[in-house]
């Protein structure tokens, strides 16, 4: 369980201080897929980065499984981060390492013996369907394949929590659906709590159990995904739904089911 209590984050000090997150109160339950929805600049990236302290809160506390992590440093910080996997919009794979050695990277940091690292990485590559790509380099893979490698890498330390920062925003809609399916499977089969950051309504709808809508550094509303999207209260979410519906009117497939990445239509073709 991840609990935010009056969490604040600002950059700069004194007169130049600029608060990007104001008084965040939020509980993310074990085993759920929690979405943080918002447009760029809303503070969602900063919010998710406070969970593994890539960004340090400037006020309030964050508790993980009841333990205050806000001030963790040194060994404690290393421990915390090894329990939290993370994947990124641009995959952030090490270009000079093979697929296998990307996946073993977190285990290297943890000082695990080589045989154990390789065995675990091979198992994870099977899980994401890339067992035949172990000796390739990231530049030889498609965007979807690269994100699969990143997912395998994020799972290397058997984390209980995985942070997904716009994980499908650089992918086309078909690949987006495949990656979301894989993330869902990881959530169900391994019981990993997913914190999903997205600007895309369809991604939130597709994968999230609950969603928090964030705008201007505040959580403006929050709830079960279906309920929240059926009865939006905030203007920003209403507007987002209206524009996505308009998109769906054009993009809907034959079954009338929205296609995975419909709201991401503008991102199509970005895949390498």
């Amino acid at each position, binding site marked *: 369980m991840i609990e935010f209590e009056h969490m604040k984050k600002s950059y700069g000090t004194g007169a130049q201080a600029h608060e990007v997150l104001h008084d965040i109160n939020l509980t993310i339950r074990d085993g759920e897929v929690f979405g943080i929805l918002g447009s760029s600049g809303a503070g969602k990236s900063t919010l998710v980065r406070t969970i593994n302290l890539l960004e340090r809160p400037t006020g309030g506390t964050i508790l993980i499984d009841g333990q205050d992590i806000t001030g963790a440093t040194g060994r404690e910080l290393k*421990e915390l981060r090894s329990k939290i996997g993370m994947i990124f919009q641009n995959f952030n794979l090490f270009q000079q390492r093979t697929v296998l050695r990307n996946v073993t*990277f977190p285990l290297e940091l943890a000082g695990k013996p080589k045989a154990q690292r390789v065995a675990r990485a091979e198992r994870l590559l099977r899980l994401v369907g890339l067992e035949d790509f172990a000796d390739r380099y990231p*530049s030889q893979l498609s965007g979807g394949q690269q994100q699969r490698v990143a997912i395998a890498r994020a799972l290397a330390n058997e984390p209980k929590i995985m942070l997904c920062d716009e994980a499908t925003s650089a992918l086309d809609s078909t690949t987006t659906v495949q990656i979301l399916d894989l993330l869902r499977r990881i959530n169900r089969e391994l019981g990993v709590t997913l914190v999903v950051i997205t600007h895309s309504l369809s991604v939130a709808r597709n994968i999230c159990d609950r969603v928090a809508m964030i705008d201007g550094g505040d959580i403006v509303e929050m709830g079960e995904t279906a309920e929240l999207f059926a009865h939006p209260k905030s203007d920003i979410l209403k507007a987002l739904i209206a524009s996505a519906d308009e998109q769906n009117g054009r993009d809907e497939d034959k079954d009338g089911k929205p296609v995975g990445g419909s709201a991401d239509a503008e991102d199509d073709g970005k895949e390498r």
Partner: protein
Amino acid sequence: MGQTINEFIANYGELLIEGTRDTLIMTGVSTLLAYVLGVPLGVLLTITGAKSIWPHRALNTVLGWIVNIGRSIPFIILLVAIIPFTRLIVGTSLGVEGAMVPLVISAAPFVARMVEQSLAEVDGGLIEAAQSFGANGWQIVVKVLLVESLPSLVRGAAITFINLFGYSAMAGTVGAGGLGDIAIRYGYQRYEYDVMLVAVILSVILVQIIQSFGDWFARRIDHHAR
């Protein structure tokens, strides 16, 4: 003149072979030692930068000064100015050993900037990813920055080697020998242009080989998307 090729080789062959050997040893060893000093300096310059993993403004500024001062002193002046230091380190200020000390001292700041440049090309997202898995500063330097920038570092090493190749000609003034020294002594001072010409041609060929090898090797180990 009017000598045959056989006579030329008999007269100057040994001299030119020795010169080639001296140049390669002097330049190669100096490059290596310049990297021993320059890599840590370049890494420190990088990681103490404002947005890097170990921001330290004062240290960054001081290191920047040292590097800039080192780079702004003309080599021939440095060569003479540090003679007492050179004697202290290698026991003499003459010959190949005597030349290597100023070569290393003048190249190290240059290497530091080259290394800094290469490390700056590493995607910040990779550093963030490594941090997210719990990497500490040392692990980020060794497992991410240096590994990811290796092809760029190799290209820089070829440039450094060739720069020192040029500087080593000036080291002839302390009797260090080498191809550049032969070209100056025989061509400039004794008007034996054929010897000078051969020494220059040998230099050109060596530089070409080193640059081509550097490019080939960097390409071979480079797995970045292009």
